[in-house]
């Protein structure tokens, strides 16, 4: 298993390097930051000075060399927006998004495994139909719309939750709820299908014949075998939380990496874009490693291969 994880890590490093190169050049194809950071009527001298100060007048390959040299020294450059090291800006925002994801994903797994398993236990029953409809609605409703409606219902009309911000624990309920919606909708469907297959297996029939209780059948015998596809989809959804976080952080005023990334793209803050992509990619890489380990724990065939 050690060599398996080593191989996967090596693949991820190559992907990471390719991503960094791609981001560096793609970002610079999108236009000059001088146009965005200076007034539109700024003089040509002021624009030249700006580009000179940040090294944008240098040949692209020279800028890239400087970027790589900085990267080797853990220096991702200065943020144009914040006039601070880009890594500091990103690492300051990252914990909020990480906390959002760390709270959201376990809740998503808990809700979807229980709901999907119960729905699969009696396919076609009322609970199954209800779960299917709700999960489809959850998976297909735009986060943005749900977030706004959530604010209007729970904060403005019912006055039981704050509209936005990060002051207290109550501030996290709406953002986490909104962020849970899509992955829960998707995972309930996956768990349901996977569990239906597992529950119709012969070893389940054997367990039933031996008089094992239905709770043990569903949550002990079937679930372990039904979990493999769930882990795969859950890892995709966890990585996708960054996408959802953009919306949630924008609407609820959370100072996370999703909103920072979007703002940096719009403002051509190259150093922050690069640092944010790198940190996010590393996080996705760690998620993948965790998923690989989870696979190995759930499926001995992987562990011993």
């Amino acid at each position, binding site marked *: 298993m050690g060599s398996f994880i080593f191989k996967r890590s090596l693949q991820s490093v190559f992907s990471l390097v390719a991503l960094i190169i791609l981001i560096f050049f793609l970002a610079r194809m*999108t*236009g*000059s930051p001088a*146009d*965005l*950071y*200076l*007034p*539109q*009527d*700024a*003089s040509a*001298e*002021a624009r030249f*000075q*700006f580009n000179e*100060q940040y090294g944008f007048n240098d040949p692209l390959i020279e800028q890239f060399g400087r970027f790589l040299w900085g990267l080797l020294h853990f220096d991702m450059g200065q943020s144009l*927006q*914040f*006039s601070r090291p880009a890594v500091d*800006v990103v690492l*300051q*925002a990252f*914990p*909020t998004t*990480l*906390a959002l994801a*760390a*709270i959201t994903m376990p809740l998503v797994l808990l809700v979807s495994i229980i709901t999907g398993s119960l729905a699969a236990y009696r396919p076609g029953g009322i609970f199954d139909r209800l779960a299917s409809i709700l999960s489809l609605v959850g998976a297909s409703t735009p986060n943005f719309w749900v977030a*706004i409606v959530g*604010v*209007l219902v729970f*904060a*403005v009309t019912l*006055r*039981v*939750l*704050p*509209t*936005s*911000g*990060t002051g*207290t*624990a*109550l501030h*996290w*309920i709406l953002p*986490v709820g909104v962020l849970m919606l899509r992955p829960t909708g998707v995972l309930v469907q996956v768990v349901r299908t996977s569990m239906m297959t597992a529950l119709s297996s012969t070893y389940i029939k054997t367990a039933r014949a031996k008089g094992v209780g239905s709770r043990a059948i569903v949550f002990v015998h079937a679930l372990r075998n039904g979990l493999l596809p769930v882990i795969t989809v859950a890892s995709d959804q966890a990585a996708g939380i960054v996408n959802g976080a953009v919306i949630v952080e*924008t*609407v*609820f*005023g959370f*100072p996370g990496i999703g*909103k*920072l990334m979007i703002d940096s793209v*719009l403002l*051509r803050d190259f150093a922050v874009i690069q640092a944010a992509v790198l940190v996010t990619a590393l996080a996705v890489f760690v998620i993948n490693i965790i998923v690989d380990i989870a696979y190995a724990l759930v499926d001995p065939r992987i562990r011993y291969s």
Partner: protein
Amino acid sequence: MNFWKSIALVASTALIAPASLAHAQDATAVTIVLPAGPDRLDPCETPRSVIGRIIKQNVVETLVELDYANQKTLPRLATSWEQTAPTEWVFKLRPGIAFHDGTPFDAKSVVHSLERTNDPALTCITRTKYLDGIAIKAVEVDPQTVKFTTKTAVPILPTLLAQLTISSVNTPKGEYTAKPIGTGPYTFDHWTQGENVGLLRNDAYWGDKPVIDKATYVWRTESSVAAAMVETGEADLAFSIAPQDATNPETDKVYPNSDSALFRLSVDIPPLNDVRVRKAINLAIDRKAFLGSVISDKAELAMQQVGPSALGFNPNLKPWAYDPEQAQKLLAEAKADGVDVDREIRMIGRPAMFANSNEFVEASAEMLRAVGFNIKLENLEMTQWLKMANKPFSPDRAPNIFLTMHDNNSGDAAFTAFFKYHSNGRQSELHDPALDALIVSAGTKSGDERVKEYNEVFRKIYEDVVADVPLFHMVNYMRVGKRLDFTPTIANAVELQLARLKLADKATD
């Protein structure tokens, strides 16, 4: 926010009762919602609204301030000023004032602030937008007197200095500061990155003691959330809420924001090089039909690119009437003379330039098609849009009708006329020597003569040349909570003086 702190916070959810939503706060403290958070809090960047609305005239003050309603400059940190020579101005400073760090406000601090703003190591917007090109310098005459010199005569120097904030000599040169030190009625207290900025009342302020003793600034990009924060009492004032969120006449107040929207025409490229075609475009757009639908009904029809608050605005120009028959007639005439009026014209917009701007350009394109124009609609992202907006223009570009929105909150037409219409202006489509001479001449005049010459500049552009399609002088909506007694003005486009916020009678009971 720290990761473990966040986790611990959420884990304690069950222990916190909804009673915490009571929003208990000091009666004299306010929370203000901005549409975006600051990236820095440097005094030399206050012309950017994202910074100016927090610190300008609250933490850092200017020598003079603009009176937009009367197109005048008023004393602030300076008590008087006079032009002693064409390129020389002398300002007398208010005595007995100290900065928040205890250092005295004197000529040295003014010289320091100007030198810091002029330092090319910083991209100070005050310099790049207002002071570049005039080579302004300041010298101390005595502790309470400063002499400013410029390369050429600048009759509106006091207007320009309304943009220069004065900070303590302890504000470092050559690097941005996140802790502004000024003389204002409020001291900078804290800035929690990504979350909020706090100011506290300066009880040693030289002027009247403000009512509000503490201000917290938060930011929400989503207008409906900002509006909801005021409605629920979480905040007291929200800037720039969208027209569709301004649903409560009691709290939602409209104010001009100094932005003027218009379509710029590529006047050199056929068929737009024919004045009849340009007139036809103006006649074919039903501007009034947009008011109250996709554009706020409080916006005003524009006749020129500056609004009434700018010195030089020509009040005698009349908005174009909506007359599609006349537009068709002009097009037919041009066609008969061999003008290729069927040629495809690009209409360029930019998403979110203003509320409902996409809908606006779509409807405008349809109105032009209705009279016979061949319009291809395109929406460009900001940098692509800027590339098209600015010179050098592409030599093989197609004829275009280009949506722009110009913000002149400086109080003077000089910042529009040269940039937009002089041959050397970065966004000018025109190259008319007579107009150039008039623009340059107007810039050197002062008083009534200046007003008269700029009036003529705009008359020429709109009546003789028909250079573009003036649309609307735009407005913003501000939601002001019931605790406050405040009416926004055009000045709030770039600043909000906390000292002018009063508590409503009910709130003080």
